[in-house]
């Protein structure tokens, strides 16, 4: 079997155990081939993610259902309006009353749903660092201990260890921010400092997560305008949680 066929079978998870061994030997012995494997793996993954977004756009379906419902509601309102027109004299006051009632309901429903949404997303604990889950670090390592504390929800310990790490990378800043966000003894402003640190840095890693959590914190602080700006960016760049960001934006509107 030639190299290209092996690579294609690898990408599509079709290699037998024997073929997998041959493939790995080739990757280890031929750096050019190894580079090609890396590039094509990224290419394949990217294409698959794009395809999945296009095929399984579940949010789109939900939005579609909502708009159908909105159309139905509008029809019902129109019918009611016709009756009100017949009973014109009584209707003037009645319509005004119904209109005020609807406005009030709509406003409170949106506020509740937006608050509920933000609370739900904030209570959804972010996964522990990959190094911990993949067990690739030394067990006495500070970062390992932080990850362990974080995964055991001992956020004060993870904050304590992370604070001591000098020249923190974006991943460490993210988990410091998250630990402060989840800890009872710190507040969201303390967490925000670290997310801002990631966002103002030059490295791309974990900026999506920092943006997402910053927008949730701003929403909790009722800074709707800044939160909306970030959410809009998340949606337009199709970055992490962009579909959820659309849901939040729709409740804001």
């Amino acid at each position, binding site marked *: 079997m030639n190299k290209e066929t092996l690579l294609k079978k690898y990408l599509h998870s079709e290699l037998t155990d024997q073929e997998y061994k041959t493939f790995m030997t080739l990757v280890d012995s031929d750096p050019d081939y190894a580079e090609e494997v890396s*590039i094509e793996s*990224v*290419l*394949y993954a990217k294409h698959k993610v794009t395809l*999945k977004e296009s*095929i399984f756009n579940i949010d789109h379906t939900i939005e579609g259902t909502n708009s159908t419902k909105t159309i139905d509601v509008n029809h019902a309102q129109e019918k009611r309006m016709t009756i009100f027109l017949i009973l014109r004299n009584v209707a003037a006051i009645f319509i005004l009353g119904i209109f005020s009632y609807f406005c009030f309901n709509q406003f409170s429903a949106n506020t509740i749903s937006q608050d509920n949404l933000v609370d739900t997303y904030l209570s959804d604990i972010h996964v522990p660092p990959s190094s911990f889950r993949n067990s690739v670090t030394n067990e006495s390592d500070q970062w390992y201990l932080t990850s362990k504390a974080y995964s055991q929800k001992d956020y004060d310990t993870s904050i304590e260890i992370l604070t001591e790490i000098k020249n923190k*990378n974006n991943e460490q800043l993210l988990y410091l921010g998250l630990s402060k966000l989840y800890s009872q003894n710190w507040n969201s402003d303390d967490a925000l400092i670290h997310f801002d640190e990631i966002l103002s840095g030059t490295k791309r890693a974990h900026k999506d997560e920092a943006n997402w959590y910053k927008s949730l914190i701003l929403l909790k602080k009722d800074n709707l305008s800044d939160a909306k700006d970030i959410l809009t960016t998340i949606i337009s760049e199709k970055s992490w949680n962009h579909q959820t960001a659309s849901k939040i934006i729709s409740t804001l509107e």
Partner: protein
Amino acid sequence: MKTIAQSDLIAIKNGSTEPLSRLFQENYSYCVKQLCLQTQCMPEDAKDLVMDAIIVLREKIMMEAFVNENTQGYLITIAKNMLKNKLKRDRRQLEFEPGLVEGYLAKKTNSPILTEDSESKVEIILLALKKLGGKCEILLNRNLVDRVPLRNLSDELGYSSEDVVKTTKARCMKKLKSLIKELMNP
């Protein structure tokens, strides 16, 4: 026994995703239920497996290797095989294992993620791919990802022969590699 309509097969082959969305919606509940019952996996994992099975089904249609029989049975069999492969993962994994990269790009919270270094490399490869753009990206995707044979691509992408496609593909890959090198060592 439900099969896929011929018109849908042609549409999928021409790149439409709409029939696949419909196929997913029609078969999703049944397949997830069956997978949960037959393999004791969690519904969330079963959902991921059904999605992956739909992607495989698309690939088979593209490669003209799809046997149009019982669609639900076909999807469940693919999903079960994928689960079996997943559980058999005592194999050494490469740095850019497609599943890991996919998890990173889709920001899945339930899958293992890449190291920060690998994430940066993935970003560089994506940037290089963006710079490469146009026909090269389509050609590489159609041949490597969709596994459309080179002879079919010469007609589809307007090349004069299979040999020209072959040469162009090699040139595209070379250009992509040099762009990556440039971006890594600016």
